[in-house]
């Protein structure tokens, strides 16, 4: 009991010393505020999270909105953090990554006046979302299909590789689309698949990514598609070192090793974030699941000055043909 009192006394002392100043972020009236909560890896992953952040900066730039962002340290903080932003009366709160799905659901119900959006929202079958929650989903399998077509046409050895981050269903989607696309273009192609791990750290381990990539290149693979966050930085580095090819993901990663990144499967998270902020500002925000795919340029494959030389006319034609077929529905891309 005395222990408790002693600790309590000290804490009280500390409180009186430190608590005397009001923190500055007290509500500024009339300013539109956006909160963003990141997935594992956070800002600076050159991939998924950065793409979302770009969208936020774009919107901030254009509309002059205030913004704050943070990365939860532990799983339970996801929901608590969202709540804190909601309590602080942020206008839009965007969660980046499917891990926020469950927390978003419950927080959105409790704060009907705040708009929520969740990138890669993990929707349940037959689920109806509250009017203030938008689930932003991407048909990554479609884009993966297209880069699979390019990989299969580019390979000289007939062997292509895939390196995923964490071994979870979301990443299986990338893998499935990629392999289907490759087979579509070249049925005899052989594929090698690897995952970096079973913990979220698997998305943030460039050393492991490089190691796995070099292993695959050593076995005759000459194109590797990675879906592994910043782990992929290692894959791209390996491509450069081994004189082989990598395919980037989420953001356009062609610039990271010009001539060695065959293309990137671009997931326009930035667009989705930007559009969400914009829709709230102009009053067109609507809850519910919103899917982005090839048709609306939510998903794309990247061609720019860094990889022009790698994409032949024949490849360009084939990939455009596949794209049209997917949009038209004549090709149905598998998700797992």
């Amino acid at each position, binding site marked *: 009991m*005395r222990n408790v009192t002693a600790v309590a006394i000290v804490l009280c002392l500390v409180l009186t010393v430190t608590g005397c*100043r009001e923190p500055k972020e007290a509500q500024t009236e009339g300013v539109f505020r956006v909160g963003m909560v990141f997935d594992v890896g956070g800002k600076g992953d050159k991939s998924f999270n950065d793409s979302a952040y770009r969208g936020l900066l774009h919107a901030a730039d254009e509309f002059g909105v205030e913004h704050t962002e943070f990365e939860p340290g532990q799983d339970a903080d996801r929901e608590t953090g969202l709540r*804190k932003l909601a309590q602080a009366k942020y206008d839009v709160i965007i969660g980046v990554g499917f891990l926020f799905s469950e927390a978003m659901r419950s927080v959105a119900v409790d704060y009907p006046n705040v708009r929520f959006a969740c990138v890669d929202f993990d929707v349940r079958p037959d689920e109806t979302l509250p009017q203030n929650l938008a689930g932003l989903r991407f048909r990554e399998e479609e884009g993966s299909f297209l880069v699979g077509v390019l990989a299969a046409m580019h390979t000289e050895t007939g062997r292509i590789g895939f390196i995923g981050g964490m*071994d979870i269903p979301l990443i299986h989607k990338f893998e499935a689309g990629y392999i289907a696309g490759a087979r579509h273009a070249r049925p005899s192609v052989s594929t090698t698949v690897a995952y970096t791990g079973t913990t979220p750290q698997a998305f943030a381990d460039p050393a492991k990514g490089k190691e796995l990539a070099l292993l695959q290149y050593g076995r005759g693979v000459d194109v590797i598609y990675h879906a592994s966050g910043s782990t992929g930085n290692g894959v791209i580095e390996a491509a450069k070192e081994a004189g082989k090819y990598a395919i980037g993901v989420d953001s356009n990663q062609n610039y990271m090793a010009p001539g060695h990144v065959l293309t990137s499967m671009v997931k326009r998270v930035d667009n989705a974030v930007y559009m969400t902020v914009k829709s709230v500002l102009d009053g067109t925000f609507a809850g519910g699941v919103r899917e982005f795919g090839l048709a609306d340029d939510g998903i794309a494959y990247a061609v720019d000055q860094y990889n022009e030389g790698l994409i032949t006319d024949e490849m360009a034609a084939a990939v455009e043909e596949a794209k049209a077929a997917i949009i038209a529905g004549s090709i149905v891309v598998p998700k797992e």
Partner: protein
Amino acid sequence: MKRLARFTSVLSPVAAVAAAFLVGGLVVLAIGESPLRIYGILFRGAFGSVDGVGLVLFNACPLIFAGLAVAFAFRAGLFNIGGEGQLYIGSFLCAWAGLSVSSLTPWLAIPLLVVAAAAGGALWASIPGFLKARFGVHEVINTIMMNFIAIGLTSYLVVNVFKEAGQMTPQTPKILASAHLPRLAGAARALGIPLPDANPLNASILIALAAVGLAWFILYRTTLGYEIRAVGLNAAAAENAGINVRRTLVLAMLLSGAFAGLVATNEVMGFRHRFLDNFSGGIGFMGIAVALLGKNTPVGVLLAALLFGVLNTGALEVDVFTDVPRELILVLQAITIILVVVGNEVLTRRLEQRVRPAEATGADGNADAGAATGEAA
């Protein structure tokens, strides 16, 4: 004299915490922020509202279990680094039990899942315990390896066998509703405490408090606890006194693992109502720091876990509402922990040095006592 010793054991952690905040403040100052402001936000997050206090308790809850696990094993002289693996297996078994039964009254469902959680942890801890007792293999190596196995195994099972259909998230479906531990918001309001409904604090904290009491009772009031402490303090004397050292080691490890497994009561039964892959992110390892800071006593663990609960809760507040980078918050937290643990150690030694010569009955202090031992060598 005894009073002085007790005073020492209270004073040193408290002074260490104060020192830690001081140095942490200097770090904040070094990046050009005001320590007063940052600590103000930190403590506002933890104590500024009933919600905050609820979060402190919620964050402390799993650390109480994990800390008890480490402290309990430590009493038997074992260093159980395997809390992380044990809590994963405990949580998985708990969730599995909650998925396997279709309908059961809460009075049966909750005990069933609690037992499953404890059993899972105990099972996982018993393996390194057995290897230590039987072959003398050091438990540190084996508990670490068992962590890897547990994380990989549960991950595989969740993704490939037990995954909720139609979902991206690597998690199981929700467990039986009657096995959910109730949140405490309602009960708190009945007592006139305005805890918001959304606060995740749940009945697991009561189980944690009971576990603290149970650990204390086992250690200090049962024959087994007596034997565990004897083995931990002096295995040769324990053996000489007819205590089965190997059996005691295995039992201590088993109970230690059971405490770790009970983390599931908060994470599975109280909060998520399912097993989420990789949900812990190091609770088991934090348990080591909690136990060290708590001097491996049950009440000490409780207090240390509360301190960590304050830090975690406050850190989120700082993270959300300031531009202090997340990395710095981690640094701050780690510095606090290191200073508390190290400072605690240094202070304890200092104070003990001043107390000990006086406690020796001989006027020579330690000198002649040492000589007596020397002769026996």
